[in-house]
């Protein structure tokens, strides 16, 4: 490979992403337009500067469309389920029911914005934690943008060992780590910090110091269960490192709701909550027939049970996952020798085990049950379907352009340019500080902790060896950074906003999450630096 690593190429490589962020956050363009502009710039730079053939650009774009369609396949059913539950009055029932268990809104926000999405991330992924948690937060009166931002912040730490540990498994496969125990402990420590930080940030956002004073026992207890639980389980069973502690944390938070936090929060006005919380969930219609709380929760509980069954029970998951197909693509090479290898089944899709299908099944069941109970008036299915389609269209368009842009960046070598450029100019301590940022960049651009690890894992390991830094620590920084970066990716934000019908606010949502991202990455950078001092060149010496 002869890719020039120069300031010109580096700044050209980062230009499409910068343009998207400026248009989205700075100029408040719609996500679909910003993504389209970024895609066109990426194509221009790929062809004009990075010597990428039009056929390579076109095929990478097709791969992007293929990937985006399966994210869209979660958004549309999630939105249909949301519309059905909203129409039936389930969210109003949930809000009232939860207030009856504990009127403590702060605990509600921590439960649905932090613990529950972390649990969902531990068993699944593909946007399901956000698609499920965001409507529930909206139901308890959280503003739409925050209803998306909170679970994204809350579940970021669970990305690496979540989805049954696939991102971690991929990292170990592509990098051949000599001392996996050191790497796994370093990763778990960084992610434990991110879990605690997520809880603190969500609490702070809810009500600043007063909220922290009120919530600190719950914060410390839940963080300890999730963070140290992960640390304890990960070395022995990485694929269960999140499932076990987050399940325990769910039980503990319910117990806290019934005991320590059984009284209302002292914070009566929170910037996270809608001015009139009831109006968020209550349609302006005649009073409804009362719905039991269990029934209102039933669609999302059924969804959780189905996801768990598919992911955790081989007798169910294996046959459903057996039907799997992906598109074959030929290989490609740019003028600078950046190779995209051929694949027989790109981004395999298992339709029967996919969260989108499970959401559709639950939507049908929910509609039938609510219709039989007459919670949904006759003839409303047309309106629900049209509303869901109209609401999801801008999100899907943005996804198509954004994911295609990411694939063009990847196929043309621009993502490699970004990482290699940072690695080339850095001294060992500076590289240690940059390692989580490189991971985050990979996660942000690919939208996946797994993909970021595959893409940047070998490069980070190579850079660590060359700079005589412990690869285990650098790889821990890679995957922990990628966990944060892949959580706040534009496609994840769009997915969440799509699920609550607020697609126009992508820029605002990203801006709201930035402080968490900056603090988390800064803390990871400091931990990486400390780690490389504590474990100097363990593998470089043959360790």
């Amino acid at each position, binding site marked *: 490979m002869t890719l020039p690593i120069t300031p010109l190429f580096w700044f050209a490589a980062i230009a499409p992403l910068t343009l998207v962020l400026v248009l989205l956050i700075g100029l408040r363009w719609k996500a679909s*337009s910003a993504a389209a502009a970024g895609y066109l710039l990426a194509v221009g730079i790929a062809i004009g500067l990075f010597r990428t053939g039009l056929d390579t650009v076109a095929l990478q774009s097709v791969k992007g469309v293929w990937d985006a369609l399966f994210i869209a396949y979660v958004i549309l059913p999630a939105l249909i389920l949301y519309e059905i539950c909203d129409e039936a009055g389930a969210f109003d029932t949930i809000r009232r029911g939860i207030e009856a268990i504990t009127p403590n809104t702060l605990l509600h926000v921590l439960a649905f914005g932090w613990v529950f999405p972390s649990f969902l991330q531990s068993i699944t992924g593909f946007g399901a934690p956000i698609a499920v948690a965001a409507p529930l937060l909206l139901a308890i009166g959280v503003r739409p943008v925050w209803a998306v931002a909170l679970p994204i912040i809350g579940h970021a730490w669970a990305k690496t060992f979540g989805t049954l540990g696939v991102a971690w498994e991929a990292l170990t496969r592509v990098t051949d780590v000599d001392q996996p125990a050191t790497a796994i402990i370093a990763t778990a420590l960084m992610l434990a910090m991110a879990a605690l930080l997520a809880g603190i940030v969500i609490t702070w956002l809810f009500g600043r110091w007063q909220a922290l004073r009120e919530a600190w026992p719950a914060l410390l207890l839940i963080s300890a269960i999730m963070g140290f639980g992960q640390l304890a389980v990960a070395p022995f069973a990485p694929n269960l490192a999140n499932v076990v502690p987050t399940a325990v944390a769910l039980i503990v938070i319910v117990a806290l709701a019934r005991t320590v936090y059984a009284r209302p929060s002292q914070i009566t006005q929170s910037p996270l909550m809608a001015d009139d919380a009831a109006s968020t969930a209550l349609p302006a219609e005649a009073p409804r027939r009362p719905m039991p709380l269990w029934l209102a929760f039933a669609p999302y509980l059924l969804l959780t049970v189905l996801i768990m069954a598919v992911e955790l029970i081989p007798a169910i998951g294996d046959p459903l996952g057996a039907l799997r197909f992906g598109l074959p693509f030929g290989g490609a090479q740019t003028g600078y020798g950046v190779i995209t290898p051929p694949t027989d089944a790109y981004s395999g899709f298992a339709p029967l085990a996919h969260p989108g299908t499970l959401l559709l099944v639950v939507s049908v069941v929910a509609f039938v049950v609510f219709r039989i109970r007459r919670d949904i008036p006759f003839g409303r299915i047309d309106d629900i379907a049209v509303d869901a389609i109209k609401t999801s269209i801008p999100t899907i*368009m943005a996804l198509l352009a954004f994911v295609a842009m990411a694939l063009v960046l990847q196929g043309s070598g621009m993502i490699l340019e970004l990482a290699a450029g940072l690695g080339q100019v850095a001294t060992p301590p500076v590289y240690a500080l940059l390692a989580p940022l490189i991971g985050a960049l990979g996660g942000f651009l690919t939208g996946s902790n797994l993909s970021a690890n595959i893409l940047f894992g070998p490069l980070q390991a190579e850079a660590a060896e060359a700079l005589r830094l412990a690869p285990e620590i650098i790889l821990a920084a890679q995957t922990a950074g990628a966990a944060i970066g892949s959580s706040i990716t534009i496609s994840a934000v769009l997915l969440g906003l799509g699920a609550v019908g607020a697609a126009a606010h992508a820029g605002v949502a990203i801006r709201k999450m930035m402080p968490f991202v900056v603090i988390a990455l800064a803390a990871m950078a400091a931990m990486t630096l400390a780690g490389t001092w504590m474990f100097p060149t363990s593998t470089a010496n043959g360790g």
Partner: protein
Amino acid sequence: MSWWREPVWQQGIAIVLVIAGSVLIYLGAGGPGGMGGPGIALFAAGIILPLVTQLRRSWQERQTRRKDG
């Protein structure tokens, strides 16, 4: 107003164009003549459509502000 003049349905049309273009590009990639122009043209049209809508909207907003100011 015709349905296709609504911004949301225009984006719907853009989605159809992008997907149709992708299918043609993919099918053309295996053929002897390369991936061909129609697929790329449809794909590009689908990507550009929302951008054109946004630029037109921004221009109209600027015009309105200028008139008000």
